């Protein structure tokens, strides 16, 4: 048994790595530029740089020795003057696509001072005479060159001659090529650090801790009541197979499945809470506030659950042991509730364990409609405000919990049925 468990844990590792990689690709590679939206529109580039620094976003994605900095965006002057419009002693020519620095000019094109502990590289093509970051530049023809420097003075200076520039870009030297966003992310996860939410101005881990209880207080009752009701109804179906009540329940469950979740919520809130005043409409103050969301949650899940459990029960009904039990003269209720239910436990347990991660992530809609401050509410707010750190943390934790509960299911299987281990 222990050998089997160890084997399964080893098999779990690639999936965990896959999940980490997938969240990384989604939120850093595809959605990397989105992260800064949470800061708002009017922020200084220095703030952005600090934001990137905190999240490792100023590093190369996977691997590399050069990294971009917010201090200076890559600029091809033939496409426009960009920031160079700000200086009166730099003359921009749109036809030539160049900027000409007048004699005796001192211009620092950076948006903010660079950190002195890092090494930077300017790459530019120029013509004329002057200095850049203390390095002398001199050429009569167009020439591309690189200037390495350590923080501090990074600007241009000209004396009696002019200096023309065409292309200009700035890179930070990444001393360790493996010091990338990916390794930063993995190190962060290993430390158990979930990041910092810019929208809420709080560490994500704290937001998650605060949200778990309200979510669980909503999802656990939904889950348990839903389970009991749907298993009971599915047993009723199996008991009265093909009788009117079975047919009715099947049609009923298909109809329930076809009603959109939103409709349940809107109609429930309107008719039961607002019109008739049986339940509070919105809030999270006492147990009373949970009744309606729980009711709606149970009803909306009922359709698919009844169908699922009914199929399981009916599958079991045709097995040999059931026929034997009937032949022995065991009563129908006893066969159903003792023999069949016990054997149907394995698929039921699978379904139950698999549902556990979803208890944690909460119900997105129910929580936001009824103002329950759980993780679902948090996720929706975070998604609407593009608070990537929060969304990434919730997606990742949900996925990891799913992997772990898969493992638990398999171990339960192996415990219940020794044949599983041999496969």
């Amino acid at each position, binding site marked *: 048994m222990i050998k089997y468990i160890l084997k399964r844990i080893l098999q779990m590792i690639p999936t965990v790595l896959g*999940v980490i990689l997938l969240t990384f690709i*989604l939120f850093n590679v*595809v*959605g990397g530029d989105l992260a800064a939206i949470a800061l708002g529109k009017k922020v200084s580039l220095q703030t952005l740089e600090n934001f990137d620094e905190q999240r490792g976003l100023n590093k190369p994605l996977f691997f590399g020795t050069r990294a971009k900095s917010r201090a200076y965006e890559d600029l091809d002057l033939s496409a426009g003057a960009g920031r160079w419009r700000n200086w009166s002693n730099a003359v921009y020519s749109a036809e030539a696509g160049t900027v000409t620095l007048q004699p005796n000019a001192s211009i620092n094109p950076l948006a903010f001072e660079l950190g002195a502990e890092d090494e930077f590289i300017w790459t530019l093509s120029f013509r004329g005479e002057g200095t850049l970051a203390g390095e002398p530049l001199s050429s009569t023809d167009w020439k591309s060159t690189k200037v390495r420097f350590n923080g501090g003075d990074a600007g241009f200076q000209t004396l009696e001659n002019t200096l023309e520039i065409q292309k200009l870009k700035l890179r930070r030297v990444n001393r360790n090529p493996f010091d990338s966003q990916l390794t930063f992310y993995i190190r962060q996860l290993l430390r158990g650090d979930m990041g910092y939410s810019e929208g809420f101005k709080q560490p994500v881990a704290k937001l998650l801790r605060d949200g778990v209880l309200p979510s669980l207080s909503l999802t656990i009752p939904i889950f348990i009541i839903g389970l009991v009701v749907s298993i009971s109804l599915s047993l009723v179906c199996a008991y009265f197979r093909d009788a009117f009540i079975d047919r009715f329940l099947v049609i009923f469950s298909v109809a329930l499945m*076809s*009603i959109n979740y939103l409709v349940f919520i*809107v109609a429930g809130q309107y008719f039961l809470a*607002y019109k008739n005043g049986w339940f509070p409409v919105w809030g999270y103050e006492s147990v009373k506030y949970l009744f309606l969301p729980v009711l709606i949650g149970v009803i909306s899940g009922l359709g698919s659950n009844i169908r699922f459990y009914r*199929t399981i029960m009916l599958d079991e009904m045709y097995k040999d042991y059931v026929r034997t039990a009937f032949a022995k003269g065991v009563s129908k209720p006893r066969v159903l509730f003792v023999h069949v239910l016990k054997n149907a436990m394995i698929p039921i347990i699978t379904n139950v364990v698999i549902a556990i991660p979803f208890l944690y*992530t909460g119900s997105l809609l129910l929580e936001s409609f009824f103002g329950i401050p759980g993780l679902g509410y948090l996720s929706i707010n975070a998604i609407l405000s593009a608070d990537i750190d929060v969304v990434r943390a919730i997606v990742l934790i949900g996925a990891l919990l799913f992997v772990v509960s898969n493992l638990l299911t398999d171990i339960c299987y192996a415990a219940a049925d020794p044949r599983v281990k041999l496969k």
Partner: protein
Amino acid sequence: MVCLGLVVIFTLLAIYGEIVYQVHDFRDITPAYQKTDLDMQFQPPSSKHWMGTDGLGRDVMSRLIQGVSIAYKVGIITSLIAIPIGVFFGCIAGYFGGKVDDVVVWLYSTFASMPGLLFILAIAMVVGKGLLGIYLGIGLTTWVGICRLIRGEVMKHKEQTYVQAAKALGLSSGRIMFKHILPNISHIIIVTFSLRFPAAVGTEVFLSFLGIGVQDQPSWGLMINNARMRLWQGMWWEMTFVTIALFLLVLAFNLLGDALRDALDPRLND
């Protein structure tokens, strides 16, 4: 039979809605369903506006029909993304086995681990608001189920004599997979399509409702969102008719899917 009739009606409405949209888009005029008429705000159903008007005096019925075409677009395009991915990976995993199979299984178990709706929302957020985000979000998350089914089926078919015969004839693997095995398991694709269609429509409604999906076209999710607050003031018609339309569409496809599954493959009954 009733459900088939409903599906046909909805399909015709969707085609009609799409034609109306394209024509107006091409001629660059405001279509009827976008025409605002502030004198006609919140009219209850009447002979002129069969389903009443909304807060900007727009006719609910024509918006509803337009919503059908959006729902269909989502259902079809997400299927066009998800089904080819799922079928391709399922086929190569089932046919080649070994290392290829390991990689595909790893890939789909990774995707299957992601928390469903939240993952779709996150993809839609990253891609950006609008229909594209919805297509990609739903399309890229729902290929896992069909991939699993196809993989299992291909594994079974691989051992059968017709495949052995094709191999003995020296046909290429690609040809055996896609020309010989695939037609024999195509019923799975049809059933999956009809069952995932309503799910995709429901998800689209949900995303648009949250304001992540469709922006300025009359999607049902947006209509529900608009109608929700009006409902509290007693303006029931927009909410009611959208709900009924959504219910009928999803129900029709669910029943059709079940019927197809029973007819085409009794073994899939779980």
